[in-house]
């Protein structure tokens, strides 16, 4: 029960985990000596645990594997130590630590600027390189401040208290208490960060970066923020190491410090906040207590290495991760969902010949806003749109794209009026997907412009476009696969309510006004209310498709681009989705690319046909059906052969 509480990071009562942590920390000086654990070891474990809190946010939650955290550990440590030994700051250890932490965060901004341009393996490689640069800086050019190979000695013990009444901390359990206080605060902060809207975005980022970007979040800024946070934790931990040892060692900036952090975090379990602490306990435990067994005393590092390799191969989630899995039950068995019932009704309507051209307005629930209703009333938001001279919701002029000598699109002019459902069709190779990507802001056109409600959005990128009120739903599902349905929908809503970046790290997710309302409204629209807490991995394909559309809707767009929404669907699911699309039309402009001609002709008011990268024809469905050029385009120009 306790472990489940600690393990569940989806809101609820965060203070429970924090209280338990506090109690355990307070009990340690009493309990640990019974096991032969010294105060020094306990303090070291906490320092590495603190270091790991920041690293876990960076790696466990945001997915950025950095092999260079030693740079910040060292920066914080040496700045603090320098201030405390070489300047007049001797008596204010706290201030020294704070300045060291700030210095580490500043270093984080600089290093992050260079390294975050890349991702994955390359990112790991260059963080390692930058950390080595810091190492070299510490050893040589800056040695008059850092003590070079000797490090800095004489770091004072802290004095806690005010002018009249104070405690002189000394090594042993009182110093443990000082360090534990920092760890506790650090944990509470990290815990809140992870539970905050900011933290949710980080998780989404790790899960599906392109989708997080397209949903309206500035991925670059979030990554940098996470990187700086990790640097700060590292700097504080480094400073505390200096205090613990009364000495700041040069190997704090060495590669093996970064390596040790990574190993401890993976062994303990990434993404659990306490993983690095557990890993540190194992590491320091083996290092110190294996000494008593002379035969393998020097093999502790080898054992750790083997454990590390075995864990990555077999238990990638680490010790705490494995424990967490044991205690968390999987989602409740799926209940029969409503979609089958809905499909039956619509098929019957089809068979009975009920015309679908003008959907019965009475059936649309009144919380689907219309174009003229101001935003942010109850129900699903639709972003109010700007003024456009010719009333076009989405337009493009001379849109062209070529890659080297190959032209994907050439000179396309198109204008889609407010509230229309426009279909885009064309044979394969017609350049539909490139064209669509240019409209969505994913691809920058070689020539030409795209206008959203009259505003030129060419080259702004998907994040800005999303914030301006246009969203896209993808042909292949781009979901946040590690989250539940409701958590998925939270991501675009958070972008809508908070803008492209907001460091609201200590805010509770529940405090975001309108979040739950928007998620509820979207769930209702795409018929997934019953499945709100189901992990994406357990959804049926049709449900995933609906969630895909839901993600685009939750952004509150007034222009919605849908790329082959019916892709891969069974006939039942197709009919279902066609109805859904009709329902979401209200108050929005829809642009749909599709190959399913029946569906397209049922849905679209107006159709544009592309061929070989150019616009071939435009017209109502009837006009297009009867257009010989269009027939030829599809059937390949019989006369030529």
């Amino acid at each position, binding site marked *: 029960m306790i472990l489940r509480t600690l393990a569940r990071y989806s809101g609820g009562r965060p203070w429970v985990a924090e209280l338990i942590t506090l109690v355990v920390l307070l009990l340690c000086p009493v309990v640990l000596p019974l096991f032969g654990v010294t105060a020094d070891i306990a303090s070291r474990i906490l320092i590495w645990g603190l270091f790991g809190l920041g690293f876990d946010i960076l790696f466990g939650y945001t997915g950025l594997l950095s092999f260079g955290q030693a740079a910040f550990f060292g920066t914080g440590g040496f700045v603090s130590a320098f201030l405390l030994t070489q300047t007049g700051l001797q008596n204010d250890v706290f201030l020294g630590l704070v300045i060291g932490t700030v210095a580490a965060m500043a270093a984080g901004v600089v290093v992050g600027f260079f390294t975050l341009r890349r991702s994955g393996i390359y990112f790991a490689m260059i963080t390692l390189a930058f950390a080595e640069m810091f190492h070299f800086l510490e050893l040589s050019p800056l040695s008059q401040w850092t003590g070079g190979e000797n490090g800095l000695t004489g770091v004072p013990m802290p004095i806690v208290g005010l002018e009249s009444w104070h405690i002189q901390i000394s090594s042993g359990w009182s110093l443990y208490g000082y360090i534990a206080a920092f760890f506790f605060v650090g944990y509470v902060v990290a815990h809140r960060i992870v539970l905050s809207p900011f933290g949710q975005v980080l998780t989404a980022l790790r899960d599906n970066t392109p989708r997080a970007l397209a949903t309206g979040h500035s991925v670059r800024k979030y990554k940098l923020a996470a990187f700086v946070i990790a640097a700060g934790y590292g700097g504080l931990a480094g400073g505390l190491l200096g205090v613990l040892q009364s000495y700041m060692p040069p190997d704090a900036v060495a590669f093996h410090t970064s390596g040790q952090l990574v190993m401890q975090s993976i062994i303990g379990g990434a993404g659990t906040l306490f993983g690095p602490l557990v890993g540190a306990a194992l590491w320091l435990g083996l290092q110190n207590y294996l000494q008593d067994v002379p035969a393998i005393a020097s093999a502790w590092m080898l054992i750790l290495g083997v454990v590390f390799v075995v864990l990555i191969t077999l238990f990638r989630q680490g010790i705490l991760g494995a424990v967490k899995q044991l205690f968390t039950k999987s989602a409740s068995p799926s209940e029969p969902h409503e979609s089958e019932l809905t499909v039956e009704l619509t098929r019957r309507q089809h068979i009975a010949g009920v015309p679908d051209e003008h959907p019965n307005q009475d059936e649309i629930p009144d919380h689907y806003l219309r174009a003229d209703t101001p935003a942010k009333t109850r129900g699903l938001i639709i972003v109010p749109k700007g003024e456009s001279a010719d009333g076009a919701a989405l337009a493009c002029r001379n849109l062209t794209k070529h890659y080297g*000598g*190959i032209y994907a699109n050439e000179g396309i002019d198109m204008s889609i009026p407010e509230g229309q459902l426009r279909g885009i*069709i064309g*044979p*394969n*190779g017609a350049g539909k997907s490139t064209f669509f990507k240019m409209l969505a802001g994913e691809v920058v056109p070689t020539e030409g412009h795209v206008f959203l409600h009259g505003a030129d959005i060419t080259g702004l990128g998907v994040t800005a476009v999303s914030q301006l009120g246009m969203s896209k739903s993808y*042909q*292949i*599902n781009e979901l946040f696969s590690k989250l539940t349905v409701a958590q998925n929908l939270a991501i675009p809503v958070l972008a809508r309510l908070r803008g492209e970046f907001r460091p609201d790290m200590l805010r509770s997710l529940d405090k975001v006004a309108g979040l739950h309302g928007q998620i509820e409204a979207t769930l209702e629209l795409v018929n997934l209310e019953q499945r709100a807490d189901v992990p994406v991995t357990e959804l049926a*394909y049709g449900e*995933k498709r609906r969630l895909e559309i839901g993600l685009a809707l939750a952004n509150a767009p007034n222009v919605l681009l849908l790329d082959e929404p*019916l*892709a*891969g*669907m*069974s*006939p039942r699911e*197709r009919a279902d989705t066609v109805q859904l699309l009709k329902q979401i039309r209200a108050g929005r402009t829809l642009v749909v690319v599709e*190959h*399913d*001609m029946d569906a397209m002709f049922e849905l679209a008011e107006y159709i544009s*046909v592309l061929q*070989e990268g150019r616009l071939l024809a435009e017209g109502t469905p009837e006009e*297009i*059906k009867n*257009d010989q050029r*269009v*027939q030829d385009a*599809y*059937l*390949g*120009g*019989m006369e*030529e*052969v």
Partner: protein
Amino acid sequence: MSLLEIENINSYYGDSHVLFDLSMHVDEHEVVALLGRNGAGKSTTLKSLMGAVKPQDGVIRFDGKDIRGLPPYEIAQLGMQLVPEERRIFGSLNVEENLQLAALRAPNAWTLDKIYDYFPRLKERRRSRGTDLSGGEQQMLAIARALIRDARMILLDEPFEGLAPIIVQDLLGVARQLAEEGRTFIIVEQNVAAALSVAQRVYIINNGHVVYEGTPADLHAKPEIMHEYLGV
């Protein structure tokens, strides 16, 4: 027994179910066209045959042997060869090196001269790097790579896409010549007319299901089917 037999395979594009219980067969020396509007399903079929994409279930029998789940290089060794939609020419190698590479692990490789007979243009450009070739030349090279392996069955994935009509005519000429010589191939094509001019049998796939099987002549006699599934 057909050279290639596919029974009830289901294929996925991402987690999009693009082929539903697809069954078809190709006999030796046949040219079969796979037509249909949606690109994903047909292309995925060919990639499944080549092992580049793993079909989820069903049976794929090539020359009597079950090949589902085999790695691509083993399938290539058995005589199946995919000419991918993106062509995938090795840009850092020249034309001749591309051909030599393809011939390396081929039991009955053609000589370079024989290939150049079919594609004189490639002979002119033999020393040009892959990145310097035009679209049509790249397509020729891609097909030549399959030919030099003396493949028993060639899978052509949208060979005419993005090419000028004159190049399409050239390639069609080569295709017809190969068909006359008894080469077996499956052609997936958007250009219906071109495909029908060289195929002996046609399958039409719509929304992931086979909806028609017949000869080009049959299809020409039923224009409404063409319009329904291929047109607009």
